[in-house]
């Protein structure tokens, strides 16, 4: 007997794959954004050497393929540092760092977009550097960054599909399994593609609402 046809159980598989994809996406987003924000604070305080190292490393991460980064972590690190590495750990580590690198750039330009006058005024009022960051810069930088961040996250959702290559059973991997079993590439990949599409659209819609909420106090007065 050949199990070549689609079965109802395939829907369960699909749901599992979607769960893995969304779970990993959520986890890497949280870690990546937190790390990106932390790096931005480091950069803001102009820590001597570390600031330059952070910029160099994030540039390297932004300018190399995520697939190669995944291979470096999953195949390279266990061989070089003699550590154990599961596919999920490798995926979490790589995608989080990648998100952090891009988020760092977005946050940094958000911080730089805050007018100097406001910071000078705050300094005149005797605020400390931390108070300025906390009360003046970060609320505005968050509002500036939210638009580009949504674009980044929609992109990172698609980047998570690469983790299927190192064996994480995400949506793409499930697609691969179903494709090889049923030999119906059009049906399988259309369904998988559509699922990703709907997730991306939902994410963008959610982000749009958040953006309107954050920018409600900013009135666009034209150029």
């Amino acid at each position: 007997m050949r199990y070549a046809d689609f079965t109802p159980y395939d829907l369960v598989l699909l749901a599992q794959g979607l769960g893995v994809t969304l779970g990993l996406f959520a986890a890497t987003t949280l870690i990546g954004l937190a790390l990106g924000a932390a790096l931005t604070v480091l950069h803001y305080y102009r820590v001597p050497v570390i600031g330059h190292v952070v910029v160099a490393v994030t540039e390297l991460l932004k300018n190399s393929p995520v697939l190669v980064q995944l291979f470096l972590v999953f195949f390279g690190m266990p061989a070089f540092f003699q550590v154990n590495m599961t596919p999920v750990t490798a995926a979490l580590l790589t995608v989080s760092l990648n998100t952090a690198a891009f988020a760092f750039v977005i946050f940094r330009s958000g911080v730089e977009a805050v007018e100097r006058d406001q910071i000078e005024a705050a300094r005149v009022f005797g605020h400390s550097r931390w108070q300025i960051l906390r009360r003046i810069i970060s609320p505005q930088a968050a509002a500036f960054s939210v638009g580009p961040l949504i674009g980044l996250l929609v992109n990172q959702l698609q980047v998570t599909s690469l983790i299927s290559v190192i064996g994480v059973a995400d949506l793409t991997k499930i697609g691969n399994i179903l494709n090889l079993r049923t030999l119906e590439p059009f049906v399988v990949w259309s369904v998988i593609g559509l699922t990703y599409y709907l997730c991306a659209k939902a994410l963008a819609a959610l982000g749009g609402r958040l953006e309107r909420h954050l920018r409600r106090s900013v009135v666009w007065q034209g150029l």
Partner: protein
Amino acid sequence: MIRSWNALEPHLGFLLEGFALTVAACVLAVAGAVVLGALIASLRTARSRAARTVAAVYCDLFRNVPFIVQLFFFFYGLPELGIYIGAFETGVLAMSIAGGAFVADVIRAGILSIEQGVIEAARVFGLSRWQIFSRIVMPNALRVSVRPMGSVLINLVLTSSILSTITVNELTGTAKIVAATTFMPFEVYAVLLVLYAALTYTLSLAVTGVHRRLNRGMPEAVA
């Protein structure tokens, strides 16, 4: 470290072959993406509502589905239709189509940035619609969109690493083989990371050069 370099040396030729294939795929895909992107962008700004809708759906779809899913769709799907082309050709095709969607958005923004007065002036001079499009609109749109197109094309180069998943032995594919035979994955992939970064850096320098050349004699943008 010395040991590593000695062990990698016999494989340099093989890696170089992979590099050549990556460059070939990128050159072909960049050409394809720019041509397709210009075509889709002109459809998106056309008078006919149907053409605009088709082009908008194309951009939306191919931007929001992960590239690896699109690649598998073509790689497993095309033989089903009786189209037998090699993995390399499939990869270039998929990269051109996906890249075209991103390039189209950039060129469309360029077209929309042209002042209506310029087009009206051309019309007053008695230029035909085709002449206006090919002599006035397109050159100006391309001039404006060189820089944003550069970042899209750099992304396309990074995307080319995904071709290794459909048996194309480009740079990442050959590196996988070398990593397996030498059992030095960390060193191999670390070198690869730097190589890709160098490649994209060179490309970004070239883009800046083209941008300067096309915009010579133009006043610097104020914003």
